[in-house]
């Protein structure tokens, strides 16, 4: 299939489908596009984690997972679009847009430059020999974590460190759904176009929290956040560096997108007087972190735990704490499994 066609398909599966699926989370509240998009990804990542784990154990072929994930994701997207149509039947969709300030456009320019640099230029990261090669291997052999990406021979035992966080399988599946686009092209050229803006959608949501109703302040915040990431070359360990040089790897998405968004969700659910999100989002965020990296299995509940401690002091609301703990349950289960098999 033509490269352009594959690129368009990739954008459908990575941009349109999550955005449409995220509409299911809107409920009665009017969510911003960034929140809808991020919620869509929470749903899809969590769904992938739930589907992949049993399929690895059952040694099922990749095409089965691709078909099941594709059908469910498309189903969620259609349901989201129907819900959107139903909600907006009698509404005038031409809402007057607030005029963005110059700082917003400056932020957009910085972010676009980052995307261009990440997508058009190559960063050589030897970790790709597992994270990307696992996806190319799965596509080539039509299997899920059955073949060692290092050499190409069958696994005699499953890779303990990675099996609970099969983000490479997500890469393999979306590559297949995108007309068989090479997973390395998907990872290095398409993922940055999606995940980098996503990282800034999270910052936008955080800006919305700090500067609600202050348009210009929100724009300045976004610009500064983008600049901080642009100048994060001071060490190879910081989250900004991971975001800028290897955003296609699960741990980078964890550090730059999911963990900051978990901060946003935890503030909404555990600290603010009026809860602005659903507990489902917090639950899905915890499961999504597990998909991205084995670090996510441990770090997501630690972060939620830190917020639970602050919430207990600040709000003294045991109900919230109890519900928050329940949201971490999948991470606890996988965490125990990780420690036991690790």
């Amino acid at each position, binding site marked *: 299939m033509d490269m352009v066609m594959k690129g368009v398909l990739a954008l459908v599966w990575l941009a349109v489908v999550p955005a449409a699926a995220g509409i299911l989370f809107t409920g009665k509240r009017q969510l911003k596009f960034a929140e809808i998009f991020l919620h869509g990804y929470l749903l899809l990542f969590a769904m992938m984690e739930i589907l992949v784990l049993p399929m690895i154990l059952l040694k099922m072929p990749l095409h089965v997972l691709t078909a099941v994930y594709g059908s469910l994701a498309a189903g969620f997207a259609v349901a989201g679009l129907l819900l959107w149509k139903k909600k907006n039947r009698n509404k005038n969709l031409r809402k007057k847009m607030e005029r963005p300030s110059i700082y917003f456009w400056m932020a957009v320019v910085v972010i676009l430059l980052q995307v261009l640099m990440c997508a058009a230029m190559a960063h050589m990261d030897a970790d790709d020999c597992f994270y990307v090669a696992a996806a190319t291997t799965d596509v080539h052999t039509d299997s899920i974590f059955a073949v060692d990406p290092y050499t190409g021979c069958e696994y005699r035992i499953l890779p303990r460190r990675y099996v609970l966080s099969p983000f490479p399988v997500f890469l393999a599946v979306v590559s297949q759904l995108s007309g068989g686009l090479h997973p*390395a092209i998907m990872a290095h050229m398409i993922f940055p176009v999606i995940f980098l803006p996503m990282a800034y959608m999270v910052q936008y949501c955080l800006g919305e929290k700090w500067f609600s109703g202050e348009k210009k302040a929100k724009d300045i915040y976004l610009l500064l956040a983008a600049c901080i990431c642009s100048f994060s070359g001071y060490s190879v360990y910081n989250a900004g560096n991971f975001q800028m040089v290897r955003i296609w790897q699960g741990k980078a998405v964890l550090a730059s997108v999911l963990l900051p968004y978990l901060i946003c969700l935890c503030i909404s659910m555990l600290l603010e007087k009026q809860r602005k999100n659903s507990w489902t989002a917090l639950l899905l965020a915890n499961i999504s972190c597990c998909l991205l990296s084995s670090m996510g299995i441990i770090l997501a509940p630690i972060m939620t735990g830190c917020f639970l401690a602050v919430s207990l002091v600040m709000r003294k609301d045991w109900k919230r704490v109890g519900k928050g703990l329940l949201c971490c349950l999948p991470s606890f289960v996988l965490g125990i499994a990780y420690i036991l098999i690790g």
Partner: protein
Amino acid sequence: MKEIFQQTKIFWDNYWGKSLVMWLLVFSILYLLIFRRHKKSTKYLIPYTAVVLILFFCPISAKFIQKCIGKTVYWRVLWLLPAIPVIAAAMTEFLKERKNKGIQFGLVLLAIAAIAYSGRGIYAAGNYKLVNNYQQVPDEVAAICEMVKKDAGDSEFLLAADNYIGPYVRVYDPSICMMFNREGRGNAGAGARRLYLEINAPVFNYTNIGAVGKRILCNYLVVKIPNEQQKKELENQGYQEVGTAGNYSLYRLGVSADAVRSPLLDRWEWGVK
């Protein structure tokens, strides 16, 4: 306990490198605490930041977390630290109060300059380079993969390469089976391990590389060949040059890819379609 704390301190120092970003974070926290005590960002972010820092530096929690995630990657706990939101929020709190648009714009530029001075440009740090393949692997890797596939045809074979080429071979083409990968991972026993060490030695001994490759029946070798003498050393072991890509040369054992067959190809199930 003291040892854990010292190790944690090293992780902390490495995380910030030689930059001033850590101080930017400290000043941001102080600014929020002193001048913006009642703002949402201060009320929500600062207590959380404090809890994360206590957790990170406390030897007991550090020991527990290190047991869970591993000692070497303990620095990843610092991903929980909301450095970007805190710095950006504090700076914005200061900047948004300026009523004069010109002054505000100038101060925003100054803030960006402060960020640039404190950190290090991601491009300037030498993270990116241009390549001529969509898969974005080193061009030598793409060329070698195309070469070996053309030379081998439908034959099954094993390839060995150094730590620069090896990690990207199966990223580019997963149909190529390897003796070992990055840092010798996935190696098939002592022979493969020896070849890995020879092919990544600080000073190459091409007779040794060829001899070990021949002994374990490795069909293809990817090596740097600086001159004719070393070429001959490999050829004396039965390897023939197939072609070159940049600084690297591809060598085949025997006249064709199926001239020799490693028992590994029969002993294991290989994920070849």
